[in-house]
C-alpha cells in the first residue's frame, strides 16, 4: 500500500435500497475515487474531499451492513457498503481527518480555540492509532503540527509570563508538564490483559476412574502459558507442526511427557525418552531457558546476587569447609536431567507473569495462531528492547542506591516538585470551562465568539495563567520546608496581581458586553479567592504554631 492511500473493496450505492455496484474505493490525499469492478459500468466516481460536507455511518452492532454515507455540498449522497466494520472505520476516520483539513492550519487553530481541541485531538489520535504509519497521509501530519504549534504557543506565553517573571523556576514549570516532554505519549499502546496469576497448565489431568485413560484439557490460554513458560516447547511446535506431525500428535506427546514428569517415574521417563527423541525434547531441561537465565543473572540486582557469593567463596572449594556438622540439609541426589520440580515451574510461571506476554486476547484462537503471535512479539521485543533494557537497568541501579539511604534521617527536600492532583482544583476548572461553554445561546456557538478578538484572547490567556498558578499553588501544600514557603509567597503575590488585572479588564470593556465578561470572570476570581483564603488561614496557623514552639519547627 502506497503512502497516504487507503483502498477497500466496497459496493457503491446511490440509495440505501440500491443493490450497489461492486468495486474499489480509494482514498488518496485530497480525493476519493471509486472504480467499479466492471470497467464498463457507468458509476465511476472521482471527487475532492472539500466538496463533502457531512458523513454518516452505520454503528457497529446494529443489524445493518457497514455503510458510509457521504453528502456533498450539492446535496447528493454517496453510499458505500463495506465488507467489514474494520474497513468502514478506517475509511470513516480518513474522511473525518480529510474533512478537518479543509479548514487549513488557520482553521484548525480556530477550532482549537473553540474548546473543541479535545475532540479534534481524539479524532486524530484514533486515526493514527488504528492505522499503520504508512497510511497516515501527509495532511494529517500537517494537522498534528498545527495542533502542536497552537498548544506550544500557549505554553510559550505562559512560560514567558511565569518563568520570565520570576514567579516559578524552570524546573517547577516543567515538573507539571512531564508528559509533554515525553515525545511519544500518544503512541501508547492500548493496555493488554496479562497472564493469569494462577498456573493454568498445572490444572489437574482428568482421570475417569474406570479405564486407564488420562485426559488433559488444553485451551488456547493454557497453550499461551505453556509456550511462554517453556520456550523449547514453543520452538519445537514451530519446527514440527504441521511439517512433521499433526497438531494433535504434538500435544499428545507433550501430555505424555507431562504425565511422566508428574508421576515422578523417572526411570520410565528415561526409558521412553531414549526411544522417542521428540518426547525427549519435552523432558530435557529447556536450553533456551538456560541461556536466558545466564543472560539475566548478569543483570540482577547486585545487592542480592547470591551467585556472586558462590563465585567468591574460596573457603568452600570442593571438600573444604565443614561438611557434615548438621547445619546443611541432606540433598537428595537424583537424575537431574529429568527432574523438573513444581517449585521451578512456579518460579518460572511467576517470572513470566511479571514480565507479561504481549499477546492480545483476540489472538487466542488456536494453538497455531498463538504460537505465531508469540513468536512475532518475541522478535519485536528482542530487536526493540535491547537499548531499553540497559537503560532500564541503569535506572534500576540508581533506584537501588537510593533505597540504600535511610528515609527518616534525611530532611524532606524533594517534595516540592511532585505534581499533585487536587480534586478541588479539577472541580473548579471544570466549573469554569463549563460556565464558559454554557453561556452561549446555542450549542456550538459559544459566547466567546461574540466577543471582540482581543478581549477574547486576553480572557483565555488569563484563564490559562490562573489555571497554571492554581496548579502550582495547591501542589505546594502541605508546606514542609522553607523552599515551599517562599514559593507560595511568590505565587500569592502573582495571584493578587492577576486579580487586579481581571478587575481592570472588566472595567475596560464596552458596557454592552460587561455583564457577559463578569460572568466569565467570576469563576476565575472565585478560584483566586479560594486560594488566597487558604493562604491566609495557613499563614495564621503557622504563626500561632511558631509562637508555641520557640525552636521554629517548620
Amino acid at each position: 500500500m502506497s503512502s497516504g492511500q487507503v483502498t477497500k473493496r466496497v459496493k457503491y450505492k446511490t440509495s440505501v435500497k440500491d443493490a450497489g455496484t461492486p468495486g474499489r474505493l480509494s482514498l488518496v490525499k485530497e480525493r476519493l475515487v471509486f472504480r467499479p469492478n466492471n470497467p464498463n459500468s457507468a458509476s465511476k466516481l472521482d471527487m475532492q474531499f472539500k466538496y463533502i460536507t457531512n458523513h454518516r455511518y452505520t454503528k457497529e452492532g446494529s443489524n445493518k451492513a457497514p455503510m458510509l454515507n457521504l453528502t456533498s455540498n450539492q446535496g447528493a449522497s454517496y453510499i458505500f457498503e463495506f465488507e467489514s466494520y474494520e474497513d468502514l472505520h478506517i475509511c470513516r476516520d480518513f474522511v473525518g481527518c480529510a474533512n478537518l483539513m479543509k479548514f487549513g492550519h488557520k482553521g484548525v487553530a480556530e477550532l482549537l480555540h473553540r474548546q473543541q481541541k479535545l475532540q479534534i485531538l481524539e479524532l486524530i489520535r484514533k486515526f493514527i492509532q488504528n492505522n499503520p504509519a504508512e497510511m497516515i497521509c501527509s495532511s494529517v501530519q500537517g494537522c498534528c503540527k498545527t495542533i502542536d504549534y497552537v498548544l506550544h504557543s500557549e505554553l510559550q506565553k505562559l512560560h514567558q509570563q511565569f518563568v520570565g517573571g520570576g514567579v516559578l523556576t524552570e524546573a517547577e514549570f516543567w515538573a507539571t508538564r512531564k508528559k509533554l516532554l515525553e515525545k511519544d505519549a500518544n503512541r501508547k499502546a492500548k493496555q493488554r490483559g496479562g497472564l493469569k496469576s494462577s498456573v493454568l497448565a498445572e490444572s489437574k489431568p482428568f482421570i475417569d476412574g474406570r479405564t486407564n485413560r488420562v485426559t488433559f484439557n488444553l485451551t488456547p490460554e493454557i497453550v499461551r502459558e505453556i509456550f511462554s513458560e517453556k520456550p523449547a516447547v514453543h520452538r519445537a511446535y514451530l519446527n514440527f507442526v504441521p511439517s512433521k506431525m499433526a497438531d494433535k500428535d504434538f500435544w499428545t506427546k507433550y501430555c505424555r511427557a507431562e504425565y511422566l514428569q508428574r508421576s515422578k517415574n523417572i526411570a520410565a521417563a528415561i526409558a521412553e525418552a531414549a526411544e522417542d527423541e521428540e518426547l525427549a525434547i519435552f523432558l530435557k531441561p529447556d536450553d533456551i531457558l538456560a541461556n536466558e537465565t545466564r543472560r539475566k543473572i548478569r543483570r540482577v540486582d547486585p545487592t542480592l546476587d547470591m551467585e556472586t557469593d558462590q563465585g567468591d567463596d574460596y573457603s568452600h572449594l570442593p571438600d573444604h569447609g565443614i561438611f557434615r556438622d548438621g547445619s546443611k540439609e541432606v540433598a537428595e541426589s537424583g537424575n537431574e536431567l529429568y527432574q523438573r520440580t513444581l517449585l521451578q515451574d512456579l518460579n518460572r510461571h511467576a517470572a513470566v507473569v511479571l514480565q507479561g506476554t504481549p499477546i492480545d486476547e483476540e489472538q487466542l484462537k488456536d494453538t497455531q495462531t498463538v504460537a505465531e503471535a508469540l513468536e512475532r512479539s518475541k522478535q519485536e521485543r528482542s530487536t526493540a528492547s535491547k537499548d531499553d533494557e540497559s537503560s532500564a537497568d541503569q535506572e534500576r541501579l540508581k533506584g537501588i542506591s537510593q533505597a540504600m539511604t535511610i528515609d527518616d534521617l534525611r530532611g524532606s527536600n524533594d517534595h516540592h516538585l511532585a505534581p499533585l492532583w487536587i480534586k478541588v482544583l479539577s472541580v473548579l476548572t471544570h466549573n469554569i470551562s463549563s460556565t464558559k461553554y454554557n453561556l452561549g445561546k446555542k450549542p456550538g456557538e459559544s459566547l466567546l465568539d461574540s466577543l471582540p478578538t482581543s478581549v477574547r484572547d486576553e480572557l483565555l490567556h488569563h484563564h490559562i495563567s490562573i489555571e497554571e498558578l492554581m496548579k502550582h499553588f495547591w501542589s505546594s501544600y502541605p508546606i514542609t520546608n522553607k523552599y515551599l514557603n517562599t514559593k507560595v509567597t511568590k505565587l500569592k503575590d502573582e495571584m493578587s496581581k492577576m486579580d487586579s488585572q481581571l478587575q481592570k479588564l472588566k472595567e475596560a470593556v464596552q458596557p454592552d458586553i460587561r455583564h457577559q465578561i463578569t460572568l466569565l470572570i467570576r469563576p476565575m476570581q472565585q478560584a483566586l479567592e479560594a486560594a488566597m483564603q487558604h493562604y491566609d488561614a495557613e499563614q495564621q496557623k503557622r504563626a500561632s504554631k511558631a509562637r508555641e514552639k520557640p525552636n521554629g519547627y517548620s
Partner: protein
Amino acid sequence: MKFQIEEVTVYFPYDNIYPEQYTYMVELKRALDAKGHCLLEMPTGTGKTIALLSLITSYALAKTESPIKLIYCTRTVHEMEKTLAELKFLHNYQVKHLGAAAKMLAIGLSSRKNLCVNPKVSSAENRDSVDAACRKLTASWVRSMAAENPNQPTCEFYENYDRAAGGAVLPAGVYTLEDLRAFGKEKGWCPYFLARHMVQFANVVVYSYQYLLDPKVAGIISKEMQKESVVVFDEAHNIDNVCIEALSVSVRRQTLEGAIRNISRIENEIDRFKDIDAGRLRAEYNRLVEGLALRGDLSASDAWLANPALPDDILRQAVPGNIRRAEHFLHVLRRLVQYLKVKLDTDKVEKESPVSFVASINSDAGIDQKALKFCYDRLHSLLMTLEITDTDEFLHIQTICDFATLVGTYARGFSIIIEPFDERMPLIPDPVLQLCCHDASLAIKPVFDRFQSVVITSGTLSPIDLYPRLLNFHPVVSRSFKMSLTRDCICPMVLTRGSDQLPVSTKFDMRSDPGVVRNYGKLLVEMVSIVPDGIVCFFVSYSYMDGIINSWNESGILKDIMQHKLVFIETQDVVETTLALDNYRRACDCGRGAVFFSVARGKVAEGIDFDRHYGRLVIMFGVPFQYTESKILRARLEYLRDTFQIKEGDFLTFDALIDVMNIELTDRNLNQRQAAQCVGRVIRSKADYGMMIFADKRYSRHDKRSKLPGWILSHLRDANLNLSTDMALHIAREFLRKMAQPYEKTGSTTGRKTLLSQEDVEKLGNNGAQEMLY
C-alpha cells in the same frame, strides 16, 4: 550534617541522626584512639553501616598525619555491594562539603569469576573454571610462549594492563564490582588484576571475610596490608564459624578417586618433561635443595591459592629430602591416598586427634610429619614447574595436600572424624573423613596481631562476653546498644491454632497432619489478602517446604494465594534462587505484590534483607532445628569446654550449642541465631514497619520463646502469645492501619528523642556525650 566528636569532625550524609548511631560512633572513636580492638552490638535497622563508615572515614580525614586504611569485611558479595553503595553516598556528601580533600579510593574486591571482562573467560561455568581459563591465558610461561608463537592465545585485557604497568591506576572514587568491570572495559585493562594491585593504595577496601581469614586466599591478597589499618567485620555473629571453616577439610571417596587421576596425569607430565626439557625438573630440584619452596619472582597471574596453614605456622625451611624429587613426591602422595582410602573404608564412626593420626600415617604409610607438612608447597611448586594451567582439574589432589599440610602443622585445636554415613540417612553409605578445626581463634589470630584496630560488629552478638573468649582477644571497648523506637513498628505474634482452633506445629508427629498443612495454608491465604506488597515465609527445611507446597498445590490453596500475590520460591539452585529473589523485588516494586517461600537455614535467610515493602510480614512456619547430634558439633563443644572453660550457663542463649551441653542429646532446640536471622531483617529504619508471625504452638512455651532475640521479645505482648488465625488477622489489620497514620518522627512526644537534629547533636557535644548514654 557535620558535627564534632571531640577533635574529629564527623561528616554524616543525613540531616538527622539516631541517638544510637551517635553513641555508637563515640564508642568506636574511643577504640580507634586507643588503637585497640572492639566489639559493638547494635540491632539492625539503626544504620550501623553508615555510622561505621562515616566515623572511620571522618577519622581518617582528621588524622592526616598518620593515615589509616579501612578494611571492611562483609560475609557475602551482595553485602559488599550494599556497603559500597552506602559508601558512595557518603563519599559524595563528603566531597560536596570538603572538596577535593575528601577524595578517596575505595574498591570492592572479588574473584576473577565476578570481575573478569574477557568474554571467553568469564563465560566459564564456575569459579574454578574461570580461574583456570584465566591462567591459561595469563600464566607467565603462556605469555612467554606467545611472544614466540603469535597463534598462542592470550588475554588482551591482561596484556594491556601489563603494558600500562605503573600507568594503570584507578582514579579516586568508590568502585563497586560493576564499576570496576565498566572501568576495565573502557580502558581495556583487566579489572581483576588492576583491583588487586590497587588494594595496596586504596583508602577503603571492601571484601569478604575469607580474604582476611582464610589463609588460602589471604596469603595472596592481603599479604601487604599496612598495620595502620582498621579492620571491620560486619554482621559478625557467625564469624567463629567462618574461622573454623577456613581451616577444615573433608575427604570423600570422590576426592580420593579424583586425586588418583590427578597423580597419574602429573606422572605423565613428568615423563613428557623428561623427554623434552629435563633441565627444568633438575632446576626445581636444585631450588628445593637450596630451601626455596617457591620461586621468589612469581608473577601475580601465576599465583595459585596459597598455603592452607596460617602464615606464622608455615616453616621457612628447606623441603625435606624425601619429597624433593618429583617422582618421590608422587610416591608419597600415592601412599597417602591409599592410606586414606583404607581409613575411609570403615563401618563405624571414628574420632582421632591429629597427633595420633599423624603417628599412624607414619607407621602404616611411612610418611613423616614433616613431609606431610610440606605437601602443599611441594605440590604447588611441581604444578608450576610442569606449567599446568588447568588448575581446576587438580582440585582433588590439592584437597589431599591441604589436608596433609594442616594435619602435619597443627597438633591441637583439630580433630579427625570419620563417618561412614550421614546419621540422618543411615542407609545411604557416604563415608567422609573430616579434619575439622574447633578453635575459631586460630584463623583470626593473625588479623588481631597484625592490625591496629579490629572492629567486630553485628545486630546480634549476645552474650557479648562470649566472643572475646571464642576468638581469644581483648577488646578495649565492648558495648551493646539497644534500639529506641519512635513507635511500635514491629508486631510479633505467636500463632498456636488455625482457623478451626486446632493446634499447629511442625513437631515430628504433627507436621504431615493434613489439618496442620491446611491450617498453615489458610493462614497464608488470609494474610496475602490483607497485607500489602511483600510477604516472606520461612519453613523448617527444604524437604518440608517442598512437601507443603506440593500439597497446597493439590488442594487448591496455592491457587488462592496466587489470586493475590505472585509466588517465588528458594530452591537449592543458587542461580534460580537469585533470579526468583530479583523477580520478587520487582513484583514488590511495581505494586504487584509477592510471596517468597524460603528455608530457615538456607542461603536467603542468612543474608538477604526483607526490609520496607519487601517484607511487611514474615511468617515462620514451625520451629527451625539444628541437628545437634552431629559429631563435629559435639567435638567442638568438648574442645571449647576443656580449653576455654566456657561454662554451660554461658551457652544458654548461644546458638544451638545449648542443647548439647545442657539437656539430653535427643531434644532438639530452637536455634537463636537462625530465628533472629530469619525475622531480624524486616526493619531498615525507624520509619519502617513489619509484622512477624511465629506459627507453631511450641512458641507459646516460655523456654522456646525466650530464645528469640530480646528486641523481638520486648515487642511481643502477652495478648499476642496464643492466637488463632482469625485473631491474628484482626491484629494484622489493626497494625497496618495504625502504621499508615502520620506520626512525629523525632519521638519528642514520647519524652526521649529517637531522632536528633544538628542542633541536638551540638548540644550533646557540649554537654558531654555521657549524659545520653543508656
